[in-house]
Every structure is written in structure tokens, then in C-alpha cells.
């Protein structure tokens, strides 16, 4: 199986004022296409930083990152934005939906960056909402939805442009156990049925059980690798 994500000798150092804070120390890893990987580790271990680098939200201080056959560490800011729009779907812990838009319009948002017509955008958003089981809530605004429903809308938004990889930052961190299990089952379904590669940061060992692989980070380095 070919790799979806290749990380080689990546160093990431943040500058906080005059102080340099090293977060990733020459980290290397590979994630295959169609894999569902859970990234675990204590706070400050570099999980979210690694996720941001894989999702193209940030650039490494040094090292190489290839995702979906593109060296994203070499892309300019504009090219990286285009690449994200075409290749990555994001799911956040606090959903990050636009409060002024309905669920339908939130899901359509990434499609504004495509050449699809308004009718096609509407249709694609309807399909995505149906897939996450929220077709009947399309006209509701985020504040009219429960946490689990908001996260489903966020997942619909992440998959509406049919990206190759989903990047999820503690997607169940704000949900109760039952709802969390529903969301994780949905992610698992997207992985198994639609072949989406998923990289998920989590503190929750139960959530990690839904992944096919778990990677443990500690102090900016890969600690161990476990297969589910």
C-alpha cells in the first residue's frame, strides 16, 4: 500500500518572544492510504503540531512533508491554501461552524472555492448531510443543534469536497460517551466504506480503539507504534 503521508526528519520550533520552543525533534513517520491513525500522547507532546503540519496549516522549521503525493513543505501560502481546499477535510474539537449560516450553508462553504454552480453546491451539501444523518436539519443554525449534531455537520463540511485525507483534532473531546461513539463510528465508516485516510488526535484511549493504528508521541518524538 502506498503512503498517503510521509514525514521525514521534521523539526518544528515555535518562537515565543525571544524564546525558542522546540516541539517536534526530527520526527519521521509514514501513514498509508486508507489508514485510520490515532495520534496520542501527553499534552505538549506535539500531537496537534504534527496534525497541523500534515493538514498544511503550518510549515515545518525543517524536514520534508509529503501528503497525497505533494511536497507541502515547499508550497507557498496561496498554493497551500488551494491544496488544502482540494485535498484535506478538517474536523475540530469545538466544531468551528459559522454561527450565521445554516447547516446546509456551512457544508456548502468549502464548495465556494470550486467552480460548481449554486445548484450543484446545494446538491453536494445535501448528499453530505444525508451521509452524516442530518438531512432533516439542513435549515438549522448551529445554535439550534446539539453538540453531536454540530460535529456531524462539521464532518459533512469536511467530506463535501471529497478530500483524500481527513484531519481530526480531538473530534470527540467535547462530547459525551454515547455521542462520541456515534461520531467515531461515522469516522470509521468514512474510512472503511469511502477509503478516506484519517489522522485523528485524541487523548481518549476508547476513541483510539476505532483507529487501525495508534501512534504515541512524547516530547516531540514518536514513542511507539501500535496496530489495532
Amino acid at each position, binding site marked *: 500500500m502506498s503512503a498517503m503521508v510521509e514525514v521525514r526528519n521534521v523539526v518544528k520550533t515555535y518562537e515565543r518572544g525571544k524564546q525558542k520552543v522546540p516541539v517536534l525533534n526530527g520526527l519521521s513517520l509514514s501513514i498509508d492510504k486508507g489508514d485510520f491513525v490515532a495520534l496520542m500522547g501527553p499534552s505538549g507532546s506535539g500531537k496537534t503540531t504534527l496534525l497541523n503540519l500534515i493538514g498544511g*496549516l503550518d510549515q515545518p522549521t525543517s524536514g520534508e512533508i509529503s501528503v497525497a503525493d505533494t511536497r507541502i513543505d515547499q508550497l507557498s501560502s496561496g498554493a497551500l491554501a488551494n491544496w*488544502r481546499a*482540494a485535498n484535506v477535510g478538517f474536523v*475540530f474539537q469545538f466544531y468551528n461552524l459559522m454561527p450565521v449560516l445554516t447547516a446546509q450553508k456551512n457544508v456548502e462553504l*468549502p464548495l*465556494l*472555492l470550486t467552480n460548481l454552480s449554486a445548484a450543484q453546491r446545494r446538491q453536494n451539501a445535501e448528499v453530505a448531510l444525508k451521509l452524516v444523518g442530518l438531512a432533516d436539519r439542513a435549515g438549522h443554525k448551529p445554535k439550534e443543534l446539539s453538540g453531536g449534531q454540530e460535529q456531524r455537520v462539521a464532518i459533512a463540511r469536511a467530506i463535501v469536497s471529497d478530500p483524500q485525507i481527513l484531519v481530526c483534532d480531538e473530534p470527540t473531546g467535547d462530547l459525551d460517551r454515547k455521542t462520541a461513539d456515534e461520531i467515531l463510528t461515522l469516522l470509521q465508516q468514512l474510512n472503511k466504506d469511502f477509503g478516506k485516510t484519517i489522522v485523528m488526535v485524541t487523548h481518549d484511549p476508547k476513541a483510539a480503539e476505532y483507529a487501525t493504528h495508534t501512534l504515541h508521541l512524547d516530547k516531540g518524538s514518536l514513542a511507539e507504534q501500535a496496530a489495532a
Partner: protein
Amino acid sequence: MKYLSFIWATLWRKKTRAAFTILSLICAFMLFGLLQAIGTFFTAGADFVGASRLIVQSRVSFTDSLPVRLMPQIERVPGVKAVSHDQWFGGIYGENTQAIAFASDPVRLRKVYPEWVMTDAEWEAFANTRTGAIVGRKLADQYGWKLGDKLPLKSNIFPQKDGSMAWTFDIVGIFDGKDENWQNQTTSLYINWNYFDEANQFGPGTAGVFAVELEDVNQADEVAAAIDQLFLNSPDETKTQSEKDFNKGFFAQIGDIGLIVRLILIAVFFTIIILTGNTMAQAVRERIPEMAVLKTLGFSNGTVTMMVVVEAVLLCLIGGLLGMLFATLAIKGLGQAAPGFFSAVRADGMLWVQAIGLMLALALAVGLPPALRAGRLKIVDALAAR
């Protein structure tokens, strides 16, 4: 255009705040429309008044009348085609309605002011009726005056020889303007100077100003200088200027209207920049995580910047256009309520162009700083609320 519905929804994120900001913009642009229209009217004089006429007044003030006996001397100045004389009558109609009334010689008025259009019969009636008066079309329409009506006027300046301030005239003509501009000026009336001079208790044989029709407009400066030279060091020194300058000077008595208007507008827009700028900055500050999400989804820095600028443009256009609409309606209303003065004040196309230019400039001034800030946001920092 595909972003418009999202930008529109964002604009109304805080409905009360957006409504109050728009309300303040409406007030600002309504003031702009009203003041600018009135200011232009005052400072421009009447632009359509040609330079073919000079106005001769007393060097001291136009309230200091000149003897009519100077007229033959003025007529002999080379370059002078015709001369008429006007005395401000200051008539009050009804309870307290100020009429713009002048005492003028009918024959001379017709020669010097060909812009006033009436039938020959009406001009002749005006010349041959001692108590005759001619009224402008707009004024006649406003009060429903017709030919043959008696026109009672009270003068607050000139009593009759019996001491009465009440005068009665016969309407013998209703004049129109030669074109739209002059038609808008048909808010005044003329009474026969000969009758006025005979019946008037004081200042016989005087006029407030002489209107001089030129043979060649290019000689205006020379003729004006020659007339003033003629009466230099006499008891009746004169000041001669173009009709347009005279009109501007008349309004300048009230004050430097243009400067007053500019100062008020500067104060208004300084306040509105601070107010709207603060609203925009706050609106963007509140949405920093949302901007970061947009960028995460693939919106470029330029697109995010553009969206904030468009939001500011929408805000300023909604408030500004509504404000200008209300100003235009108010100007129309004033014109109908007081046609004698406000009928010439108009919110024309140029005023709208200026206003729209100002709306866009205001939008850039208040929208660009937060827009650039939004464009420069680092996704990771913004998502982490750092």
C-alpha cells in the same frame, strides 16, 4: 458574487449593532446630501446666470440706494447696451410670508432680462398699469394667483405717503423662465417702479442696484472699472461686479456658507469614521477563529481580506444610499414647502456621484485595516486564540 450571501449573513451577525451603525451612516449621509446641496447653491451662486450682465451697487452696501439720475451716465459708458434699475421692496404676503419683490421699470426690465418670458400684451400691461405687478409662474402656482387678481402686500421697509405700509397691486402678467434653470427662479415678483417711486414716502428717485446689459461679455472688467471710475470721489461711489459675483456676495453676508458646510461635514465624517471603524474592527476581532476556519478550508489571505472589505462596502453603501435617498426627499420637500428659496437647491447627479465616492472611500478607510489584519492571520495562532 458567490461569496455575497455569506458576507451578507456575516454583516448581520449582530443585528442591533449593524442596525445602529447603518442608522448613524444614514444620518451622516443625509446631512452630507442636505448640506452639500445647500452649500453648493450658496457658494456657486447661480451658475446658469451668464456673465453678460453687471450689477452696479453703492460701494458702501447694496442697502444704500443709488440715485436713478446716475443711469444716463452709466448708459453712456462704452460697452453698455442697456440699463435697468431695481429696488428691493421687501413685501410680505398674508400673515408673514416673505415675498421676493422688486420695484423695476417694466420697459428696462424686459430689455435687460430677456430670460423672463411673457406675452407682449402682458409686458405692455405691466408698462401701462401704474399699480401693475408681474409674478413668476412658480409663485403664482403656489398661491393660486391669476391675471386680474388684486395682490395685497405689506412692505416692512417702504411706507406710502399716507404712512400706510399696506400696498395693493394688480397682477397683469405671469412670467416664465426661458429654460428649466430660469423657470426654477420664477419665485419672485416685480412691481412697477414708477408707481412705487411716486407713492413711496422716502428715498424718491433711488434704486438699490442697476443691472447693466453688456454689448460684449469680454469687456465686462473694463466696463465695470469704467463705471466705478465714473463715480469715484463722488457722494455716490459705486461697486460694479458680474451678476454671479453679486449673487455670491449676497449670500456671503450670511457667512462663509461653504466653509461652515465643510467644517460640519468634516466633524460628522470624523465621528462616523471612528464609529464605523470601531464597529468593523470589533466585528473582525470577534470573528478571528471563524476567519481562521475559512483559511483552514482553503480560503486564501486575499479572499479573506476581500470579504472583509466587501462587508465594509456593503455597510457603507446601505447606510449611505438610504441617507442620500432621505436627503433627496427632504430637499424635494423643502422645495415644495418654501419654493422661493429651496426650489433651486437640488440633489443632482453630481452630488450622488460625490456621495457614492465618499461611501467607497469611507468603506476603505474603515474596512481596510481590519481586512488586512484578517488577511495576515496565522491559522494556527488564530485557532488557538493566541
